[in-house]
């Protein structure tokens, strides 16, 4: 019971430790400001803040000592942190005695020397604090290595997903490495990298390829969460069901690492939906229905990227732009009938997004054949409506080359049989509407 109170109090150390820091900073700031005549009246406050810092530092040291008793820390850093912490408390106390008027020591030493010593105290504090931070967060936490570290890009397709780098590694990193790392090494186990995982720890092999029962890591994370040996310990967040599934799959499939593609592994199909949702690739929540994934049916030439300003330009010109799909960006563009807008006026803005336009409706807008030569650029167009325009057979010449086109509406135009013959050359065009045109 007594030990529990100690442990509990020890855990307050990271909280209390900030008090002496704050007080000392105020003392330094006040001390320096007091050189300015306007702030001279701050001078007497330095002494009292220093006293507070001293008391807080003693408390922090006591609580810190209690925390160190739990024995979870790197001994070398711990020793120097303990030493510098106690030293700081002592020096602050001495300095406080110097600063109080009773002994009148300060004036003997001179103001400037006093201030320099005070700043020196600040430096000692910074060192102590850094040691403490290294204990909790690890030495790499605030190093230049972190600053220049380049994280692996999120995979964009399932083909890019690597089993260790994208799946197992990140799971270990988020759930295990806080304790099982080079400078903490709980249970003599380090899970920071693939090569280290193989070495195992105090309880034996963490992972045995193809053998779940002998893999200590898997046994520990799948124990009942009340079990003494359950990992992660101390109520830290456990692995999710999906994460356990991934680790299980990885061990069963040989626990390989270093640039092994997920899709190259055996039985990967079974777990693929879990993987896709884990790395955020799944396009649909609907995994039970075997609807062919839409992307496989879509035309890969449609750009996924578009300049926002171009869509706005179309709208400002009075065109109706409907977004049919956002990935890739498919547009359905309509020029409302009898709009009074001439096609050549809007051709430049249309051409800017020509590859994104999948459906285009230009019916009843006094369009002439020559206006339509821009259509050659609409490589991904699937449906076009040109009905109720004074166009002739010449228009079909601009359409026949469009590989994706499947429906052309030429109702109530001046086309003849000839247009149908021209368009018949494109096998993709399934329907040509020519109702009330001149061809009959």
């Amino acid at each position, binding site marked *: 019971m007594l030990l529990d109170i100690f442990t509990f109090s020890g855990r307050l150390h990271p909280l209390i430790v900030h008090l002496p820091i704050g007080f000392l900073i105020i003392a330094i700031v006040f001390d320096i400001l007091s050189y300015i005549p306007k702030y001279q009246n701050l001078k007497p406050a330095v002494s009292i803040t220093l006293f507070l810092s001293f008391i807080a530092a003693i408390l922090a040291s006591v609580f810190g000592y209690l925390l160190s008793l739990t024995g979870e820390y790197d001994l070398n850093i711990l020793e120097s942190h303990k030493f510098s912490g106690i030293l700081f408390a002592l020096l602050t106390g001495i300095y406080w005695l110097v600063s109080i008027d009773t002994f009148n020591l300060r004036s003997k030493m001179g103001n400037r020397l006093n201030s320099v010593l005070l700043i020196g105290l600040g430096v000692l504090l910074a060192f102590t604090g850094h040691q403490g931070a290294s204990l909790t967060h690890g030495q790499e936490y605030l190093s230049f290595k972190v600053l220049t570290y380049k994280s692996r890009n999120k995979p964009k397709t399932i083909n890019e997903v690597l089993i260790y780098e994208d799946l197992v590694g990140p799971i270990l990193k988020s759930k295990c490495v806080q304790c099982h790392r080079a400078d903490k090494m709980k249970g003599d186990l380090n899970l920071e990298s693939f090569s280290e995982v193989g070495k195992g720890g105090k309880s034996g092999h963490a992972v045995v390829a193809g053998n779940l029962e002998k893999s200590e890591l898997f046994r520990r994370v799948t124990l009942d969460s009340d079990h003494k040996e359950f990992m992660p310990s101390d109520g830290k967040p456990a692995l999710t069901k999906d994460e356990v599934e991934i680790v299980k799959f990885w061990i069963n499939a040989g626990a390989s690492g270093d640039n092994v593609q997920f899709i190259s592994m055996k039985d990967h199909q079974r777990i693929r939906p879990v993987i896709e949702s884990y790395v955020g690739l799944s396009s649909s929540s609907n995994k039970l229905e075997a609807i062919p994934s839409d992307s496989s049916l879509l035309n890969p030439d449609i750009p996924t990227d578009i300049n926002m300003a171009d869509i706005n330009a179309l709208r400002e010109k009075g065109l109706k732009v409907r977004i049919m799909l956002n990935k890739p960006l498919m547009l359905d563009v309509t020029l409302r009938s009898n709009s009074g807008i001439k096609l050549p006026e809007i051709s430049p803005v249309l051409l800017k997004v020509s590859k994104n336009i999948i459906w285009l409706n230009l019916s009843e807008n006094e369009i002439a054949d020559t206006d339509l030569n821009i259509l050659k650029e609409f490589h991904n167009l699937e*449906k076009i409506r040109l009905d109720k325009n004074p166009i002739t057979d010449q228009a079909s010449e601009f359409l026949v080359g469009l590989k994706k086109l499947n429906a052309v509406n030429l109702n109530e135009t001046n086309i003849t049989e000839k247009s149908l013959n021209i368009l018949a050359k494109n096998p993709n065009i399934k329907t040509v509407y020519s109702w009330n045109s001149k061809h009959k």
Partner: protein
Amino acid sequence: MGHHHEKDFRLHGEEFDPLNNKMDRRDFFIKTSMGIGALALGSLFGNKFFAKNRPAVSAATSDLENEILRALPHIAPKAKRVVYLFMSGGPSQLETFDYKPKLVNLLGQDLPDSVRQGQRLTGMSANQSTLPMVPSFCKFHQHGKSQTWVSDLLPFTSKIVDDICLVKSVHSEAINHDPAITFFQTGNQLPGRPSIGSWLSYGLGSDNENLPTFIVLVSKNAPKDQPLYARLWGNGFLPSKHQGVQFGSGKDPVLFLNNPEGYDGEDRQEMLDYLSKLNEMQESAYGDPEIDTRISQYEMAYRMQTSVPEVMDVSDEPEEVFELYGPDSKDPGTYAANCLLARKLLEKDVKFVQLYHQGWDQHNSLPSGIAQQCKATDQPTAALIMDLKRRGLLEDTLVIWGGEFGRTVYSQGKLTANDYGRDHHPRCFTMWLAGAGVKPGISFGETDDFSYNIVKDPVHVHDFQATLLHLTGIDHERLTYKFQGRRFRLTDVEGKVVKEILT
């Protein structure tokens, strides 16, 4: 008149500037916290989407980016518009599309228990001492390239069988009219959920800001034996601007749209501008979404003052069109006239047009009743398909025909030499779909020789709804609306896209 209000509202005059510039504690917290929220949100969405080619950010482009991010089509859509011909009352599948020649030999025999499988019957026929089976009184013939069997009661529909996809294995859970229609329209038997058209309006928005997104037309030339409640095209918990707007057949197709007597309407726009400013003040004070609805509906009504008379005017239609739709088509409010009007609305890119034709509830005197129903609807229905097809609109319009359930193989009431009735039967019935993204000229699903149970490819009401949404580009599992702590869907927790009927 407007000169009184040159500077918006008096409250914003110079003398009020000091007052208006004051920011009280509450304002401060609201504004700063929203700012922080927006920052957080910005960093969540920022750069993810259009990292390249980012132009100078204007309000319009960031709205657009949001639009694209939210852009609902989860799937490349096939249908841009939907027209749903609802045959209310439960048309008999046995006299229309589900041809069961073996029944002729079973005339008058009791329905075998092995077929009924202990199914509960309605209170209307449960007390009958016998359940005598009765074949269709009318003949069936094969039509079109697909050689589809269609009843002689539907001579015009017979001509379009190669354009439609018959689904003979639809089944429902409800056995009485109102719950069954409510189930079809809203995905739940109890009232209160949004109708299909409201979901589409909410999910996909409008393609024509001058007309409502969801328009309802009810035939006047149909027996009104079972009521149709306006909640069937209600918005449920969705904002009320998504509710269906019913167009009537009289002098005013949309009520209260015309200017009141003695008012010339010249300053209507100005009046509406001030009104929306007032409403916006209310909105910012109370944040009630119904105020937004009110603002947008006032503006919509104003635009409809010109757009509705224009779309209702059929004087430009050539005689040939009226001949196509049949003699009723010149009489506004009939099913035929509504079919013609539906075509005109679809031409204007109205997203969802729903027709209702009542009177298919033939518990008795079925032969004469259903003949009359078919006569009123067969030609206009076929005409709508033909008209949409020749205009190229069937390319991206989905057409649906069907009722809320089917009818029993046994006769309800007395079976005589030339008369019988049929009770409600939700276990199997026929619907058809045509147009955008649907395989034409096929039949899907099969029933047993009694048209009592489904033997192949059942299609539940939720499956039908999932398929409808799929064709418009919506994943039915992802179109949700959170209400009272729960996310609701049209298909609730069920529904499976019938991919076999998709092109």
